[in-house]
C-alpha cells in the first residue's frame, strides 16, 4: 500500500495519546482507537500507526496488519469530495461497474486513490440500503440515484466551480 508522507505535529501526537488514553491504552481496543484516529486525521498514515502502536504497546506490524485487513481504514487521504460508488448486489446488476469505470476514466485515478489536486477520491461501498435508487453514488453527504454512464460527467460538472 502506498502511503503519503506526513510529519506529525506535536499537538497531533498529543491528540492520539489522549485517544489511546480514553481506551485505557488497552491493546484490545486497537480497532476503536484506529476508528477515532481516522476520524481525526481522515486517514491513517504510517506515522499515526506508529504512535498508536507505541501507545497501545503492540508491534506496529500488527497495527498495519489490522489497517490493511479492514477496507474501512485507509492510508491515503480522501479527497475534499469523496465519491463512493455502491457495488452492492442491486447496484451491481444495474450497472455499477460501468459507472465506476466512467468515474475512473474521467478522473484518471484508480479505486482507493485521490486525484493529485486532492479534490476527488473514489471508493466502493457495499449497499447503503437504498436499492430502489440503484445504481447509487454518494459524494460527501449528497446522494445520486439511478446514475447512468452518461450522467457521470454531469454529476462532476456540479463540482467544477467548487474548491
Amino acid at each position: 500500500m502506498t502511503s503519503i508522507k506526513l510529519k506529525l505535529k506535536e499537538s497531533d501526537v498529543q491528540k492520539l495519546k489522549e485517544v489511546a488514553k480514553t481506551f485505557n491504552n488497552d491493546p484490545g481496543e486497537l480497532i476503536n482507537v484506529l476508528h477515532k484516529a481516522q476520524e481525526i486525521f481522515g486517514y491513517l498514515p504510517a506515522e499515526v500507526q506508529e504512535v498508536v502502536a507505541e501507545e497501545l504497546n503492540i508491534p506496529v506490524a500488527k497495527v498495519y496488519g489490522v489497517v490493511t485487513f479492514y477496507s474501512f481504514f485507509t492510508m491515503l487521504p480522501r479527497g475534499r469530495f469523496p465519491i463512493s460508488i455502491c457495488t452492492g448486489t442491486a447496484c451491481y446488476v444495474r450497472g455499477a461497474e460501468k459507472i465506476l469505470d466512467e468515474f475512473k476514466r474521467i478522473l484518471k485515478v484508480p479505486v482507493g486513490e485521490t486525484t493529485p489536486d486532492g479534490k476527488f477520491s473514489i471508493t466502493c461501498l457495499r449497499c447503503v440500503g437504498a436499492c430502489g435508487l440503484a445504481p447509487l453514488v454518494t459524494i460527501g453527504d449528497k446522494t445520486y440515484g439511478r446514475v447512468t454512464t452518461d450522467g457521470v460527467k454531469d454529476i462532476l460538472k456540479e463540482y467544477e466551480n467548487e474548491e
Partner: protein
Amino acid sequence: MELVKLTIDNRTVEVAKGTTIFHAAKELGITIPTLCYMNLKDLNIEHKPGGCRICVVEVEGRRNLAPACATDVSEGMVVKTHSVRVLNARRTVLELIISDHPFDCLVCAKSGKCDLQDMAVKLGVRDIPFQGEKSTYKPDFSPAIIRDMDKCIMCRRCETMCNDFQTVGVLSGIHRGFESVVAPAFERDLDHSECTYCGQCVAVCPTAALTEVDHTNRLISDLSNPNKTVVVQTAPAVRAALGEEFGMEPGTLVTGKMVAALRQLGFHFVFDTDFAADLTIMEEGTELLDRITRHLNGDKDVKLPILTSCCPGWVNFFEYYYPDMMDIPSTARSPQQMFGAIAKTYFAEKQKIDRKDMVVVSIMPCVAKKYECTREEFATDGSPDVDYSISTRELANLIKSANINFNNLPDEDFDKPLGESTGAAVIFGVTGGVIEAATRTAYEIHTGKSLEKVDFDALRGFDGIRSASVDFNGVEIKIGIAHGLGNARKLLDDIKAGKSEYHAIEIMACPSGCIGGGGQPLHHGDSSILRARGKAIYEEDKGKALRKSHQNPDIIKLYDEFLGKPGSELAHKLLHTHYHSKKDKQVLLD
C-alpha cells in the same frame, strides 16, 4: 482432572477435557498431518491457528469437517481421521495451497527439507487442477535472511516466533484474502525493520519463504582461487549439532570429524572460534572485574550490571529497544569478530599474508552472524575482518555436495595458534556458558586463588530466566541469565523498574543459547535435542586439559607478542566496539 471419552477411527480413547482432537489422536498413535501447527513444548509455545486446514477430520453429527488442531474433544465424540471425505478434502486443500506456490522445487533452497513438498508426496498429489493467478512479491534480501513470499503458505509460525517468543514483533499477517501475506510494517524490507536477524523465523518456516543468505557458492569460489588464503573458524555450538545432519544421535560431538572435513574441503587453516572465546573472556572478564571492583569501592558512576555482548541478535535487540541502556553492555566484540580482527593482523603478519589475500570464513550456528560480519565498525578500509559466515546447515550441505563421507572421517586437530582453546570457551555455545567462563577467570584474578571446582552448577540449566550468586571470597556477585529475547526483555524491564539487581547478565537471543541457534539443524522444538547438544558441550569442556581462558597458552603468547595486556590500547582498537541506537533507523531511512 475431568476426563472425556471419545472414539477416533473406531478406537476408544480417554483424554483430559480441553484436549484437542489432534492430541487425542496422538494418544492412539495417530499423527494427523498438518502444515501450520507447531508445538515448542519447552518454550511454552503451541501454535495452532487452524489455518492450513490440512488437519481436517470428520466428526459425526457435524456438517463441516473440523480442524483437528483447533477443535476440542467432547464426550462421546466420534471422529474419523481418514475417511474418503477427509482424504479428498485434505488433498483438495493441499492442491489449492500448491496452486499458489511456485513449481521450482528442483532448484529450491528447501528442496528435500520442505514440509509442503513432503506433504505433496505423502498425499500423492500428481496434478494441480486449479489454474489461475499466483501471488508475486519482490524478494527481500537482507544481510542475513531472505524473504521470498511467493513461497509463503501463511502458516504464520514465523509470526509466533517473532512476536510471542522473541517479542521483536517485526512480522505480521497483512491485507486479506488472496492478497494476504506475512510482512514487516508498511511492507518495509527486513533491513529497514527492527529485525534482529535471530533467525528463529527461518528455523520454523515450513517452506523456503524464509531462508538464510547462502554463501556456499562464494566459499567454493574462494577455495578454488589460488591467490587466496582461506581461514576458517568454527563456533562451539556447531560441533554439538553438525552430526545430526549425518544421521548421528543428537548430542554426538563431532569436533574432530568437522576439522577433518574442513581440511578436505580445502581450507588452508582450520581454526577455532573457541580461541577467540578465550580472548573474549580476557577482555570482557577484565571489564567485568574492573566495573565490579570500582562499584565495590564506592564509585557511583560505574554502570552495572554489565551485559554480555557476544550475541549479535541480542546486540541488535538492545540497539532497537533499549537505546537508553547502551552504556551497560560490555564493549567487547563477539568471539567471531575478535577472531577476524586477530587473524587479519597478528596471524596475517606472522604468515606474511597480505590482508587482501586472506579470506576469513566462520561456521556459525547462527543467522545473525551473517549480518554481524557486515557491520561497518568491523572492517578496515572497507575490508571486513570476517568476510562471511555460513551456518551449520550450509556446512552440512557443502560436505554432502563435496561427497565427503563424514561419518567415516578420522578425528583431526585444529591448526595452531588460533585453534587452541580451553573448556571455558567451549561452553559459550550453551546458555549460561559465557558467564560461567567469565566467572572462572574473574574469580581467580580477583581472589588470587585457584578454583577448586571449575563447574558452576548454579549457572547451568534451561529455564528461560535464571539467577545465581557466586561467592568471590566473601563478596557476593549476583548473576542473571536469560535466553530468548522475550526473556531478555522481561529481565531488562525488571532491572529498569528496579525490581532486580545484578552485577552481570548473560543474554542469548536463541532458545538454550547458540545450540538452539537459527542456523542449526532444525530441532522442531524438541527440547530433548537441545538438552543433548548442551550435554555434549559440557562434556567437551570436561575433557579439556585446560578449562580456564587465562590458561590458554596461545592467548598468553598473543598478549606477550602482540596485544600487551587486556584492555590495552591495541586491544581496544581490535577487540572492542561501540553501539548505535537504531530506534529511529526505520524513520530515517524512509
